[in-house]
């Protein structure tokens, strides 16, 4: 992939100077340490700050939620996974397509700056090295944007090094007791910081069930039961809507394999109600499988 930064800057500059959009969401280098971080610019003169490199791992689509109540038009740069996030928001009625100018970037796969930092920091046990593709990119089936007004870069092949759902199959092969033990162990380490929820593009409810106090649906203690409840609730809430961007797993400070549950549901929904993959195209009136009903929906559980 050639350096797309000049293109990114040119497009952002034009969008702003021609008044096509009010602001642009992209990536820039943090002044303090030169890391790639999300950026929001409002003037064409700031377009020179924007960049695109292998560390632009953040899904910017979630950031659109901050603007859902405004009427501003927004230019946004998206990779394959991020573009599915935009379909997610549009389909969920959270952000109108008309207010967006989408610049798609065919994604060559990202590196995880935070993982590199953790490795260098001495704060973490085992971490991925700098040269490796980010964990969330290693099971990517759709590196190319699915919705855009303009496309940058060359089409990329999927990065499925492993058999799709091989991780899920390993869990499915466990007995119920073993599986229960496996997930209890994992979720016992959750610190309930809600980073996985807040970074999630499918978690776009204005009032989250986990923040409600009357009634309080899930207890606030970090006990096995409450933690398990939190993760099971969340997985079921995003079932059929998760666009597999992997941000939840990327941001988890406890390093929990959060995509396991999501992928299990993606696999099941595809088999039961599919073929279906969330957020691959934006169609008028389309609803995710668990948000709609068809007479032929399988119901073997009804006796």
């Amino acid at each position, binding site marked *: 992939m050639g350096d797309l930064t000049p293109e990114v800057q040119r497009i952002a500059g034009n969008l702003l100077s021609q008044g096509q959009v009010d602001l642009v969401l992209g990536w820039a280098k943090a002044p303090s340490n030169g890391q790639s971080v999300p950026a929001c610019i409002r003037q064409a003169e700031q377009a020179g700050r924007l960049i695109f490199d292998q560390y632009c791992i953040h899904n910017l689509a979630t950031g659109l939620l901050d603007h859902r109540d405004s009427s501003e038009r927004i230019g946004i740069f998206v990779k394959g996974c991020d573009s599915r996030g935009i379909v997610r928001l549009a389909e969920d009625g959270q952000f109108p397509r008309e207010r967006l100018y989408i610049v798609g970037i065919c994604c060559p796969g990202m590196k995880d700056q935070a993982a590199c930092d953790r490795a260098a920091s001495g704060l973490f046990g085992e971490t991925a090295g700098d040269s490796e593709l980010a964990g969330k990119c290693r099971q990517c089936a759709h590196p190319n944007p699915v919705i855009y007004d303009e496309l940058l870069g060359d089409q990329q092949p999927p990065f499925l090094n492993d058999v799709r759902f091989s991780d899920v199959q390993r869990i499915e092969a466990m007995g119920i007791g073993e599986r229960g033990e496996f997930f209890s162990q994992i979720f016992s380490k959750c610190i309930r910081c*809600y980073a996985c929820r*807040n*970074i999630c593009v499918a978690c776009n409810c204005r009032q989250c069930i986990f923040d409600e106090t009357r009634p309080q649906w899930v207890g*606030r203690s970090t006990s096995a039961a409450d933690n398990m409840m939190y993760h099971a609730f969340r997985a079921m809430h995003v079932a059929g809507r998760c666009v597999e961007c992997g941000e939840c797993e990327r941001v988890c*400070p406890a390093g929990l394999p959060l995509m396991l549950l999501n992928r299990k549901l993606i696999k099941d929904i595809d088999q039961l109600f599919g073929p279906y993959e969330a957020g691959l195209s934006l169609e008028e009136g389309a609803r995710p499988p668990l948000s709609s009903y068809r007479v032929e929906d399988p119901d073997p559980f009804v006796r």
Partner: protein
Amino acid sequence: MKSFAKSAITVVLDRLAEQTRTYVPMRDGVTSNFSPWSERRASDLALNSLNTTFSPKGIVFPQTERLYDFAVDGQRADISGTHAETGENILFGARACDRKAFAALDQVFLRRGYVDTNYKARRDGLTVIGRDCLQPGPFCFCDSMGVDPMGADGADVLLHETTEEFGWEPLTEKGQALTLRLNDLLTEKELIRPESAGCRLEVNVAGLPEKLRGMFDSPVWDELSTFCMNCGVCTYICPVCHCFDIQVMNNGSSGCRFRCWDSCMYPEYNLMAGGHNPREGKRDRFRNRFLHKLEFFQERYGSFGCSGCGRCLVTCPHSLNMVLVINRLGEVKVDAS
């Protein structure tokens, strides 16, 4: 100076753990934390790691802490005891930043009138074995926050680290007591204490609290908080953050009341009875967190609510952190009028 060979570390830890639960830095999969030492987990011992992913604050201030149980039977209500832990614990290998954080927690829970009995019980029962910090990491900035990486503050014993040895310097009565328990394992030896390489990362906090008094309405807070997601990562991995909530677990006719960590980043944290939320937007919550650490805490206790441990620099999902914020606040021009 008394010392023991690094190769004898498990013998020393075994001896300490014989009588007292001894928290040591341990790997836990991709993360690390201070966990009770046991021979069984010897291979997880992470004495060479710089800091632990999660700070040791949970030892004196657990994330979830049961306060008391209750049971109701008709008109009768029984409260059955408290669960404050009074046992002895040892924290082995705490670096200066984490000990500074304990000092900050002490200010909050012990020193200003109200004494938190649960915290006090845990704190009084804790013996802290500190260690020199010879090679602060790329994200450490403790010396900018007034912490000496080689200092002895907050330690009952300080370990001086050389290539082969740990020098053992008892500093308090608690430290002397531990020395007696280890006496036959310690040998008298001349140790040359290496100097710390010091922190490579620096921030300038001179005059910051005073400057911040005039910055409550600065547009810089909108700019800085643009990509803050209001998750609680920074607050929960921070060794100084100490906000909590009191909650009830109700199982019908019985249950318990417990205390749990809370985060000023959460909307619910700021929600008042009646439904008003004085910090409605994320800008408001973000500003409060940093003003608390850099202005209010300093005004009330005379030190910053940050010990420069660097944990938030590597865990924020959008790379926001204390250093970035301090630098940006420093750049902003404030109108003197």
